[in-house]
């Protein structure tokens, strides 16, 4: 079964544990600036929104890369950048409609979410379940359940 990151922004508190965990996994330091998941704060609305790569099935980044540095991991579904092959041309960063592939000046390569090889550290670190790692064919399960709860026989009878 393939899994996907499922993000529920309503639960997010903006703590950045996900960014910290991501950076630690990929750089060995606690360094939100190097995180591949970003939490955006909309201060005046009191909203926090975690955002990262959705691993498009037909990934623009993968298609655009001229040196085939981005490959498809069949097991996890992740589109993975091979540092050894990436030449840092940044074409993928332009191709990605969502902005989730980014250039890292320190390494001269690009970086994007690789689902940590199937054990995404952001999801483990998130204390509120705003990020979960779930069946890729059922990312809507939680919302369905919430709606189901509102349309059950009891509630209909009441109405």
């Amino acid at each position, binding site marked *: 079964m393939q899994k996907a990151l499922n993000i529920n922004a309503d639960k997010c*508190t*903006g*703590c*950045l*544990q996900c960014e*910290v*965990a991501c*950076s*630690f996994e990929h*750089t*060995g*330091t*606690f*360094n*939100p*600036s*190097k995180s591949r998941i970003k939490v955006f704060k909309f*201060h*005046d*609305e*009191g*909203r*926090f929104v975690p955002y990262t790569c959705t691993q498009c099935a037909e990934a623009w980044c993968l298609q655009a890369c001229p040196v085939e540095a981005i490959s498809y991991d069949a097991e996890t579904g992740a589109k993975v950048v091979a540092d050894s092959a990436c030449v840092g041309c940044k074409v993928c960063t332009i191709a990605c409609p969502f902005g989730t592939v980014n250039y890292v000046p320190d390494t001269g390569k690009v970086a994007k979410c690789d689902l940590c090889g199937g054990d995404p550290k952001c999801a483990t*670190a998130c*204390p*509120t379940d705003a990020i979960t790692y779930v069946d890729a064919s059922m990312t809507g399960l939680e919302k369905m359940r919430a709606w189901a709860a509102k349309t059950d026989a009891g509630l209909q009878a009441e109405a």
Partner: protein
Amino acid sequence: MSWTRKLLRVNLSTGTCTAEDLNMEWAQKYLGSRGLATKYFIEETDPKVDPLSPDNKLIMSTGPLTGTCASTAGRYTVVTKGALTGAIACSNSGGFFGNELKNAGWDMIIFEGKAEKPVYLKLINEKAELVDASKYWGKSCWDTEEGLKADLQDPQARVASIGVSGEQGVKYACIVNDMDRAAGRSGVGTVMGSKNLKAVVLRGTRGVRVDDPIAFMDATNAGKAVLAENPVTGQGLPTYGTQVLMNVINEMGAMPTRNFRDVQFEGAANISGEKMHEVRADGTKNLVTNAACYGCTIACQRVSTVERTHYTVKDRPQYQGASGGLEYEAAWSLGSECGVDDIEALTFANFICNEQGYDPISFGATVGAAMELFEMGVLTLEHTGGIELKFGNAKALTDCAELVGKAEGFGAELGLGSARLCEKYGHPELSMSVKKQEFPAYDARGIQGMGLTYATSNRGACHLRSYTVSSEVLGIPEKTDPLATDGKAGLVMAFQDATAAVDSSGLCIFTTFAWSLEDIAPQVNAACEGDWTVESLLECGERIWNMERQYNLAAGFTGKDDTLPKRLLKDAAKTGPAKGKVSGLDKMLPEYYEIRGWDANGVPKAETLNRLGLS
């Protein structure tokens, strides 16, 4: 290794920024943040220095856990000589400033001297630069933060700044970061203003390392599990914030009301955490969501809106959005202390405190004292500029908040703080303060340990030096009788020492509702060099406490300053479980001195100092 081993010295008089190696011998003795910054401060300044003179210094410091993945590890501390108190000042703040400083590669910044013209410090990793801040002088913290991020073209930058109140010498100005987090007490923002330092803008991308990553992950994960399972940190704080306390403290008759004339507030339910969850007439709630500081898995912060039809925001769209909401301390000081139970007015006043950069506790308590003076006829409409300064008048409160924000008219008077204001008008006994710093939200008659806490606090009246409320009210780590004085000396000392250690690590003190030093020591130990155990942390905390005490004594304080206002010592509580009680400070203080290893005048004995390596 989780120290970066580097500090930045910024001489504002000469305009130079220099990198120095951190004194690692001191780091082993004083840990970081509060402890280490205080050590540097004391070594480098004259204890008699005028807080507002260029010879005072101001230190911003992280702890060894700051910027790591430990829960709540985003904090930083500001250490200086307090403008409000003239005592050692040490205010810490959450948000995202501390971790950014650490990520930029610095353990601390020492500011010295005074800039000729307003400046701000721009610090991007190792590159430090003082920049002309004239276009921000006269601007609020909110405008300054937004403006600096725009100038830098970096929305990810972090800013700590002062508002107009800090520029204009309001004695309890704070340093605000991330819009609504603040190093709040003792006038640290006033000192910053006296140096013509408007702000610090930071960006750090270097990463924070720990000594033993595997042990560190184990220790921090274990710690996070404890926080999640604990009813206070796992449920109470995320749901109600510190406001979880409002009804509890009121019921036990320890809710200071109308300048401590009463100990219970009839309007408490209207300004409580529960009230913030209620649906308002327009279908919205005061509370929009809870929120977290960097790395915090508790997330106690309140994010609120003022009801759009409320008089304070009706025609003012800039205040209609969400921002930092009421914490218990602010709800108390702006609310029951002033007899005001309009939660929308309190929320608005709290916004102004954050926007303009001053401490809501000292502000509210000063307004409370002024209201008493007004009702006595000592202050008149002429003094207040026409404000009907009566207890319970919400409009008077919000008008005062705006005036203090500009330090204008009667706002400048209120900006003196209650001690100076009451002294000026001939009633020093009406200032509810210790060492000129106003009390927080727990009445010392109903929670006896807090009386000793306030009287002996090194930074003036404060709940965060030894929060015995944990034990006396919540039963953490074990329940003690709030009305008893027996055993409180030992309780206060234990809390003071442990708190000094936690404050020096870079963690938030709210973790200690669930964590003891047993949970914290393994995290510190895995993060940094040295042998950090429960015992060594406690000893470190005791050392820090005594060092701060020594500083205050050298600054001119004596054992006589370890006291409380007459009202708490002589006027009995009128209602509730503490009815008939006064503070039993006289019973607790001698015992406290003794177990501290201090003499009858409150001076640490030579053997105590020797034992702690302080002589």
